[in-house]
């Protein structure tokens, strides 16, 4: 019987080998996948036991911190946001039950202190406890406060301010705001359908018709493609017929033959409509895409809180490309089905301000580990170069005219040259605005100082009866002044 006993033992060795094989599969080889399973709440609970890193504003103001509750195995850290609603956007929130959103979600890895596989094995051997890293952002609390305060006075909308030379996001404000400390009590209420939608970051996750602010993109395409020079004149009557429909100037004003400066300063629709047609769809769309349209915005926010900008076909839910049929003249003046996020418009302003180089907009600045040393630091990167420095200079000149003597005079700051562009997109019957006929999307985008730009800003207010110059330009001015004063 001994031979059989030895064979039986061999069989049991095989069985136990299978056990070790399966254990290895679950604990090591498939572990990453299992941890990512939605029904696996364990990683969430464990994150709660790790002191999550703080989030700081550029000046050291604490935006988010973790406060311990309970002790022993019941110990957990709860997120607290000392600034209340001020940074609800773009920081988002982090709760075990509701997960993370926005910045908290995008930077979850650093905030929970997840290191590379090798590092964590070493840490396990040395018994080091995981600890979150803190992140210093580029956000400017004073300017953020001004932006949010102005927005609350003007209406729902958003403000984005970027440092053109680096892409640092200095302000990202969205009205209606929400207080992330109140998420557990109020999230269900906030998620109910309604106009307010405070959890929506309107700066990145709402698309509006950009209106005349888009004329800067059209002008850029015209200059870049050589279709026009600043001196080229285009006869701009009170109205033109485009695809069988009237495309008119304000008050049907006939401007005659005018050059770019005059056209932009006075936001002449018939000039830009014809320019768009001359430039052609290919060149216009290529310029748009270089400015960031038709792509996920390159910002450090999760995909769930950013939207692409572009010509949006609401029936198919797709962005149209240069091959799709569009009403080009109306796209060129920022209408048709063209939609843009405030972030996208700020990126256009920032690219012009930075001599044609579009820097990747980033909210974070540096990551600091538990020992206090900087482990990662933002190195500004060029996203694209949509226009040459020469084109940028020509556009800047035209945009200065807008603020000095054109449609955007309310944006002017004493002693500082400002370049900008207004926008007033008509949004009649808009469901979001309650269906009125006199509804506009008011815009202002620009940068200051025009000769040596320190900040590029887009400000927009939805469902307003006023013009961009009345409702958005003052917000631009206040935010720009605050940022320049802090320099």
């Amino acid at each position, binding site marked *: 019987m001994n031979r059989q006993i030895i064979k039986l033992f061999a069989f049991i060795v095989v069985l136990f080998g299978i056990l070790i094989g399966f*254990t290895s599969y679950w604990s090591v080889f498939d*572990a990453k996948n299992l941890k990512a399973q939605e029904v696996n709440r364990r990683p969430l609970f464990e994150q709660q036991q790790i002191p999550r890193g703080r989030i700081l504003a550029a000046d050291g103001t604490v935006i988010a911190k973790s406060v311990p509750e309970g002790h022993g195995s019941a110990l957990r850290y709860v997120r607290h946001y000392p600034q209340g609603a001020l940074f609800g956007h773009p920081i988002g929130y982090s709760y075990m039950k509701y997960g993370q959103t926005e910045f908290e979600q995008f930077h979850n890895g650093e905030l929970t202190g997840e290191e590379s596989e090798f590092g964590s094995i070493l840490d396990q051997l040395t018994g080091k406890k995981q600890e979150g890293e803190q992140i210093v952002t580029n956000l400017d609390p004073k300017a953020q406060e001004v932006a949010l305060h102005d927005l609350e006075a003007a209406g729902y909308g958003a403000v984005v301010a970027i440092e053109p030379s680096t892409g640092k996001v200095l302000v990202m404000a969205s009205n209606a705001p929400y207080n992330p400390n109140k998420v557990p009590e109020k999230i269900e209420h906030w998620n109910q359908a309604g106009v307010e939608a405070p959890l929506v970051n309107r700066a990145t996750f709402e698309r509006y018709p950009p209106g005349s602010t888009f004329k800067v993109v059209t002008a850029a395409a015209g200059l870049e493609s050589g279709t026009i020079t600043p001196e080229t004149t285009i006869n701009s009557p009170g109205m033109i017929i485009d695809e069988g429909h009237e495309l008119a100037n304000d008050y049907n004003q006939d401007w005659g033959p005018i050059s770019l400066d005059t056209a932009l300063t006075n936001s002449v629709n018939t000039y830009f409509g014809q320019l768009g047609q001359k430039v052609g769809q290919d060149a216009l769309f290529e310029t748009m895409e270089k400015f960031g349209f038709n792509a996920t915005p390159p910002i450090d926010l999760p995909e769930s809180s950013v939207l692409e900008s572009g010509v949006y076909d609401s029936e198919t839910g797709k962005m149209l490309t240069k091959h799709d049929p569009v009403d080009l003249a109306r796209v060129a003046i920022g209408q048709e089905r063209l939609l843009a996020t405030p972030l996208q418009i700020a990126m256009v302003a920032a690219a012009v301000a930075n001599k044609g180089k579009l820097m990747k907009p980033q909210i974070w600045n540096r990551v600091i580990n538990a020992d206090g040393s900087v482990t990662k630091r933002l190195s500004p990167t060029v996203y694209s170069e949509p226009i040459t420095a020469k084109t940028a200079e020509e556009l800047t000149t035209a945009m200065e005219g807008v603020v000095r003597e054109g449609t955007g005079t309310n944006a002017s700051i004493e002693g500082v040259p400002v370049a900008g562009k207004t926008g007033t997109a008509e949004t009649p019957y808009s469901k979001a605005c309650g269906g009125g006929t006199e509804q506009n999307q008011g815009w202002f985008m620009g940068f200051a100082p025009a000769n040596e730009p320190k900040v590029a800003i887009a400000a927009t207010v939805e469902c307003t009866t006023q013009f961009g110059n009345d409702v958005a330009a003052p917000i631009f001015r206040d935010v720009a002044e605050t940022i320049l004063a802090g320099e």
Partner: protein
Amino acid sequence: MKSGARNRELLALIPVAALLTAGFAGVFAQDHAKLGNASLVYGAYFFAICLATHIYLRIRLPNADPYLFPLAALLTAIGLVMVYRIDQHLARDQANWFVIGLILFALTIQFLRDYEVLERYRYLIAVGGLLLLLAPRLPGIGQQVNEAYLGVKIGPIAFQPAEFSKLAIIIFLASYLRENREVLVVGARRVLGVTLPPLKHFGPILVVWGASMFMLVFIRDLGSSLMFFAAFLALLYVATGRFSFVVIGMVMFVLGAWFFATTVPHVHERIEIWLHPFNDPLESGYQILGSIFSQADGGLFGKGFGHALITVPGSPSQTLLPAAQTDMIYALIVNELGLFGGTGLVLVYLLVTARGFKIALLASDGFSKLLATGLTAVFAIQAFVIIGGVTRVIPLTGVTLPFVSYGGSSIVANFVLIALLLLVSDRARREAVEPGGREALALGAS
């Protein structure tokens, strides 16, 4: 030789006691943030109890295998530390069961020194074993756990009869096969290239098969059913040397299990959960998913003692690993000690198995050989069935992890199992050193 074996046993017990002390100290430090002397006291008690058992073995079974008892003590120590880490009160129960288990261990050695006596009562033992299996279905004393009828409760005493009936059934099978193994082989015929045992001896095989199918359907204990039948096939193979019998048995079991899996809802559900746990992740699939998620959490080295999450932090009533102290203790061990810890534990079971089979190899008479083989096989298969269930190799069942899972029946029954193995071992090794020993013993018995 005599004192050599026992000295090795004593030496092996010291690291076990040290491990237990370190484990308790680890859990204690984790929980209380400061180390008290309690863990040292527990370690000292544990060592004292093991030492007493060791001295008893030195007197009664001086030649017995020196590693089996330390290995059992090691498994118990691992179990005690893990259970202590889950709940101190449960650990106290478990420690009491450890002492009671050792008392039964000593009593077995005391009164079954001539264990051939078991052969005489084999049918009585078999009937007793089957009655034990039936007990959980009896009204008044039967208890249903997770839909399976696993427990019996008489007054204040609750136990799992399957743990004890496995001993009875192995004793019966060892004795029955010792007597009939030649007949089974000699009378075998080849039909269509398959060797079949003679029809009249096929009966008992059918009985065992029927019993395991009965367990599957009426006791609803897939785990024990699998364990008994696999142990039976292992014994049948060792006794007859006919692999074809094993194949026939496996085919019969698979056909039966498949039939019931498609017709009996609760068996079907078990299989479904095993194959598709993500179909119902919050209800029926919750436990097995909890198991693999906690293993994933453990990784290569584990979270460390006391660091794994068993319940939702802050709300102790919401469990993340249901039945952590019993069915799922292996998952918890992988969670806290990692793949290395889990592998280590499996290797300890493999060492027990190796020692058990070594005893069977050394044993000279058929009954001793088959008894040692059967006891070892059922022990190894039990460990495989529950670890396999926890790691999704096979459907999850409610079998205990020998010596490690919380539960008195398991500890007590398995210490009796080890005692029987040591009895066989003592005689086998004594005969090996004293060439005349066998005849002397035979004379003495007659």
